[in-house]
């Protein structure tokens, strides 16, 4: 398949808008689960308001949250796809810009020193674009994540050492959730990166935080630790919006990578309850949109 950059541009635009307006089915199911298990009355009322908002956004074709986030595009290219990498990146930037100007959307992106807003949702290094390859598919997949700042501002890295063991990882996750309190717009998905280098560890935490609910860490030890941590996090009583309750996190997700013999890094990145995500699959027959 030869990848058409006009198709990529259209998809980049449509995905940003779609992601901001409709939550994936796995997140909606997550809300249903929490509504069933929550015992605190204030927390139940907050969850009900969140669920009402999902319906209002769909009914009024409006954005779920005012925060249009930092746009992230994760591109996976299958085998046999012919493409021009630089043109692909440029098309994603154009699509992101057009979504912002044509919808219009609030551009939440500024220069880090001058704080100047180009009103395109773009800037140096933004949108964040990750390109990966997968020989098991013959299509191109684009996942779009508008990462909101309330949760992103609560991102943490600790370069623990081997002598501190897994206990350091567990303690760090619990303490990050306590430190974040209501600032992350709980219930959250707590993303945990374990291992790698410092930058890879933080990247893994983001990948974990934005993974669909119901998915498990591919490593069996990691998958088991996910459940243990989720149980402990939901004992804390932070609750929706940090105002108390059982529903602190939908889940804890872990992504891991091999690390150095001297290292034991752990990172935490959180996803707020408006866990927005959209996906386009580009095939020779056209573009399919989903989550």
């Amino acid at each position: 398949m030869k990848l058409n950059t006009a198709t990529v541009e259209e998809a980049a635009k449509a995905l940003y808008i779609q992601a901001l307006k409709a939550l994936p089915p796995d997140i909606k199911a997550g809300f249903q689960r929490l509504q069933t298990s929550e015992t605190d009355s204030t927390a139940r009322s907050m969850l009900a308001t969140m669920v009402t908002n999902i319906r209002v956004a769909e009914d009024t074709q409006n954005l779920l949250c005012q925060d249009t986030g930092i746009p992230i595009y994760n591109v996976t290219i299958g085998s046999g796809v012919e493409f021009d990498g630089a043109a692909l990146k440029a098309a994603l930037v154009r699509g992101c810009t057009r979504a912002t100007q044509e919808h219009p959307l609030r551009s939440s992106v500024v220069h880090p020193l001058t704080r100047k807003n180009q009103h395109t949702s773009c800037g140096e290094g933004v949108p964040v674009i990750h390109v990966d390859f997968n020989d098991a598919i013959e299509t191109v997949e684009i996942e779009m994540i508008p990462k909101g700042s309330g949760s992103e501002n609560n991102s943490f890295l600790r370069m623990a050492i081997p002598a501190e063991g897994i206990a350091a990882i567990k303690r760090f996750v619990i303490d990050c959730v306590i430190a974040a309190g209501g600032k992350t717009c709980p219930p959250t998905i707590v993303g945990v990166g374990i291992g790698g280098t410092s930058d890879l560890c933080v990247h893994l935490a983001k990948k974990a935080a934005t993974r669909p609910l119901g998915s498990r860490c591919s490593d069996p030890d990691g998958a088991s630790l996910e459940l243990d941590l989720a149980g402990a996090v939901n004992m804390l009583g932070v609750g929706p919006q940090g105002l108390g309750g059982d529903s602190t996190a939908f889940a804890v997700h872990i992504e891991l990578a091999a690390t150095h013999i001297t290292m034991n890094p752990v990172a935490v990145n959180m996803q707020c309850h408006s866990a927005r995500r959209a996906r386009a699959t580009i095939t020779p027959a056209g573009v399919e949109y989903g989550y």
Partner: protein
Amino acid sequence: MAHHEFNMPVTEAQVRSLRVNDTVTLNTTLYGIRDASYIALFDKGRTTRFDLRGHAVIHTAPNVKKVTPSAEFPAGYAPVCIGTTTSDRMERFTKQLMTQMGVRFIIGKGGMREGSLAAFRELGGAYLAIVGGTAALETTWIEQIEDVDLDDLNPESLWKFRIRGFGPLLVAMDSHGQSLYDVVQANVASKREAALARLGVTP
């Protein structure tokens, strides 16, 4: 746990009648403020032509559409999506916001800290919690963008909204020194050890 309906602006006595866990619905006028507009007003010495005495501010930077000014859109902006941002970043400005501008209510999400609580107690103010991330719903409570100031900071301008039935909002910090966030934080701290024990870890 009473419910209160207020037509803005309010008096100090009205604010002091509120207790945490009460709920409030606001009508008529609401101002939008956040990081850049706070910094402009209180760090850079800029001024506004708006009179915020007795009013409520919401921590927001809305999604708007530029339109030709008209009776329906007097500020030249149509609302698209108006929501709420995390309040904690604006903590250090609360006292100035109240003493210099006379603001009585802060609407936000995630709560504020001891400096704000002290200012609410001393000057007669309250923090009204909205459910963060529910902007589609909040937008239905906003009738119009009436006016805008400091618009070079867009989207972090100082916004004046006409509102109807804005709420219910939860009184999460009152003028009597009570904060629901403090209660929850103390409770969470007391559960840390048990959560770690469940994971087989010492505190």
